[in-house]
């Protein structure tokens, strides 16, 4: 890849040909505000907030490739004015009850508004025009709040480019433009697979998990469902797992997950979880101590082995348990003298 020279905000730098202005700026630690850009996705260029001046012309930094000798200014008066007005326009059409919003403090619109310098004085000149107050709560996992949607299209591109199902697209025209399913049906009746990739990427509170709980710490692990082995990051609050996100560093899934991996963790805290050993007494499974339960099992194992030979014993290992668990199970039963060990690999 050839390198080209560009001048950005007075600094001469070298960058790889083919990079966009945005990517170059980012690599230099120069912040350019944007609302519709996402590093995982193709560029869109709709928010018009990442405008910069390149060779005297205003261009969108997210789409414009650098050219040799290009002179880039990321903070001219024109550019700042345009960014400010475009962000103000979004805010006129945005439910601004930030405190009660699930995305509070993690919101791209808040971040960008602060950067471009939105002030109450300027906002007062403008008229509030909420064009879409619909809330789609059909999906049991996440909700869509259109009063907070900035129509950046990140969810549309995510569904098309990450999941590949394209359950949503832009719908309607003009200021009524919104994100719609086929036939504008509730999302639950669409092709949506509830993978949550769009919810993960939504820059505002338009797509949020219902009853979201913010974790206090995170733990890296691997998904316990199918054989793909996606990397997970569990969010923990107290002693409960409260969220899951994809591990972007894991090469298996690059952070992508499906509905089960991302949302199938409630079972951990389910009240029906077994919490104590049970021993059948008088035909009924009754709570018992570990000592009692394990002593009984040990005694029974020895009894059957001694009376009927080791092949009277059989064990099922598990495709769900760890290698270490399975290793010990087969070691235990083989040590007892039987090879009657199998599991449901065939199912």
């Amino acid at each position: 890849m050839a390198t080209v020279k560009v001048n950005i905000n007075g600094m001469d730098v070298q960058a790889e040909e083919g990079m966009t202005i945005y990517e170059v700026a980012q690599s230099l630690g120069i912040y350019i505000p944007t609302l519709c850009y996402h590093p995982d996705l193709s560029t869109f260029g709709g928010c018009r907030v990442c405008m910069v001046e390149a060779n005297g012309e205003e261009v969108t930094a997210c789409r414009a490739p650098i050219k040799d000798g290009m002179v880039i200014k990321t903070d001219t008066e024109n550019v700042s004015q345009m960014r400010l007005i475009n962000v103000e326009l979004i805010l006129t059409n945005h439910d601004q009850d930030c405190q009660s919003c699930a995305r509070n403090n993690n919101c791209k619109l808040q971040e960008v508004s602060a950067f471009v310098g939105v002030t109450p004085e300027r906002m007062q000149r403008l008229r509030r025009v909420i064009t879409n107050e619909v809330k789609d709560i059909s999906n049991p996992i996440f909700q869509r709040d259109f009063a907070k949607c900035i129509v950046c299209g990140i969810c549309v591109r995510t569904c098309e480019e990450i999941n590949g199902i394209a359950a949503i697209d832009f719908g309607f025209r003009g200021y009524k433009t919104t994100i719609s399913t086929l036939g504008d049906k509730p999302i639950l009746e669409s092709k949506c697979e509830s993978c949550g990739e769009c919810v993960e990427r939504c820059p505002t509170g338009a797509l949020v998990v219902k009853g979201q709980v913010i974790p206090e710490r995170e733990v890296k692990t691997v998904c316990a469902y199918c054989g793909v082995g996606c990397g997970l990051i569990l969010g923990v609050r107290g002693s409960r797992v409260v969220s899951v996100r994809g591990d972007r560093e894991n090469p298996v899934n690059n952070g992508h997950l499906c509905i089960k991996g991302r949302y199938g963790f409630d079972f951990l805290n389910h009240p029906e979880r077994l919490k104590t050993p049970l021993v059948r007494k008088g035909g009924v499974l009754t709570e018992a101590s570990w000592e009692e339960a394990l002593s009984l099992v040990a005694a029974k194992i020895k009894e059957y082995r001694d009376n009927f030979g080791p092949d009277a014993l059989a064990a099922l290992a598990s495709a769900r348990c760890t290698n270490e668990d399975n290793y010990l199970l087969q070691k235990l039963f083989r040590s007892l003298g039987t090879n009657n060990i199998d599991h449901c690999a065939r199912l």
Partner: protein
Amino acid sequence: MHEAFVSLRAEAIRKWEERQQSTIPRILVGSATCGCATGALDVITAIEQKLQETGIKAHIQQVGCIGMCYAEVLVDIIKPGRPRISYKNMTPETVAELLEDYLLNDNPRPDLALAVIGEGEVEGIPNLADEPVFKSQQRIVLKNCGHIDPESIEDYMAQDGYMGLVKALQMQPQEIVDIVTKSELRGRGGAGFPAGRKWNSCLRAAGDQKYVICNADEGDPGAFMDRSVQEGDPHALIEGMTIAGYAIGASKGYIYVRAEYPLAVVRLKKAIEQAKEKNLLGENILGSGFSFDLEIFQGAGAFVCGESTALVMSIEGKRGMPRPLPRPRTTEAGLWNKPTLLNNVKTFAYVPQIIHKGADWFTSTGTEGCRGTAVFALTGKIKRSGLIEVPMGIELGKIIHEIGGGVLNDRKFKAVQTGGPSGGCLPESKLNLPVDFDTLVEAGSMMGSGGMVVLDETTCMVDVARYFLQFTLEESCGQCVPCRLGTLQMLEILNEICAGKGREGDIELLVELGKSIIASSICGLGKSAPNPVLSTINYFRDEYEAHIKDRACPALVCKDLIKYSIDVEKCSGCGLCRKNCPTEAITGGKKEPHVIDQVKCTKCGICYDVCPDRFRAVACFTGKEKAAV
């Protein structure tokens, strides 16, 4: 190749001549969409009936639109040995009368006639060429409209049709592109991009598959130039596109036409079939080895699909959204990412004649920098509305006062809006400007695809700006913030101004927003959406100020700012206003002065209209009780 065409053409001319020499009268009825809307089909039925009743033999022929909408339904009669006389505003009744008088009794009825078309004289009827409506016009694109049967390829061929194609097929593609370049033809879609440059870039683009697309997605309110060409002379478009296909090396073309133009679709389909039948389209055209196929693609009514990249997406089956810059040129990566030549209907329709008659012929019309003619749909408060074709550079005032005959009801001219929702309003002081792409843009408007709406003193300029803005904001594709929300914000402000709720600083805010929308929108739609507002602020700022500061609408249009009342002194209590008031807002006893209940009044103005002139008791007020009109 030549031989085959020569005999086709000879046959077509023979038939045409035969018809001119016809021993029975010919009746031409303008039955494009405009004619049909005015009742052309009923007129045709009436003609048929009359002919049957009287036993007169005559040949009826449907033709396209000649452009004189104010005179529709137009019926032309050519009696053997007599000139062609055009009759205006025909109804089933008057046409029956006319047929009896003229065909049976040889009274040409000058009272019903509009003009004589072509050579010859008839007493009491002027010649169209000498009429103000026509004498400054010059017809190139519209030359066949209203003269030939658009459903007959032979009619077209008798007018030198397909001569351009035949000539082109004997040339090298580069030669054709050079002629187009030399003709200085600029694209008629609105932006006026040099066609030759586009063709050249497409010719040079690498690719085994290329496409030609005709943008017939004419969406400006009040504009119907492209429709008229498609309905009145479809073969000109087909021939132009075929020449383009040969010139750039494309084997496939699409005509992207509005689904709201059903007659255009029917006529184009018929024309394509006929051209294929005669081997002027399709496989191995006239044995040249060049094949070209044309397909009609009907748009679903999105205005933004007139934008070239959105149009391409629409044909590809996607949501039509303009692709943001930077993006590859359509000429290099257009439809299905293949090199694509996209031009407007009129641009293609010029091409056959340019090739046939040469570049110099074309450059002899118009001005330096803007060659050829301009087609306008002249509408609004104008006496002679219709479709006109004038040489580039004609004075704006001439169009309005001479061709258009001046303002309707002899009211005072206020402004002319050009360029559709993307254009702007020009005041009286700009009527001396020459009409071309660049001058209008400098003046804050644009030629656009050719809409021209005349506004008089009864038009509120704030309201007009609001109307056009409303149109664009509803038609925005919605992808970029300035266009989606900026225009909405401007509309909200205009709504408040018109409702008497404007604030100090709103005019400056509108200008600030407008400039930012122009600077930061993705496509031409957004970049021109504020034009109607900015140009009216520029030329009619006092009207905005009156709305905001005085809460007054000087044109008495904005209902929230006007008030009707009855002068007690003048009212005789005739009761006409009370009887006609749709909301029962007027009360008063017989012979007693009447009163308007302002709460019930919807400001429809009927009381004002019906109050007899001898009393003139109803008055309209605006602002700080300032009387007006």
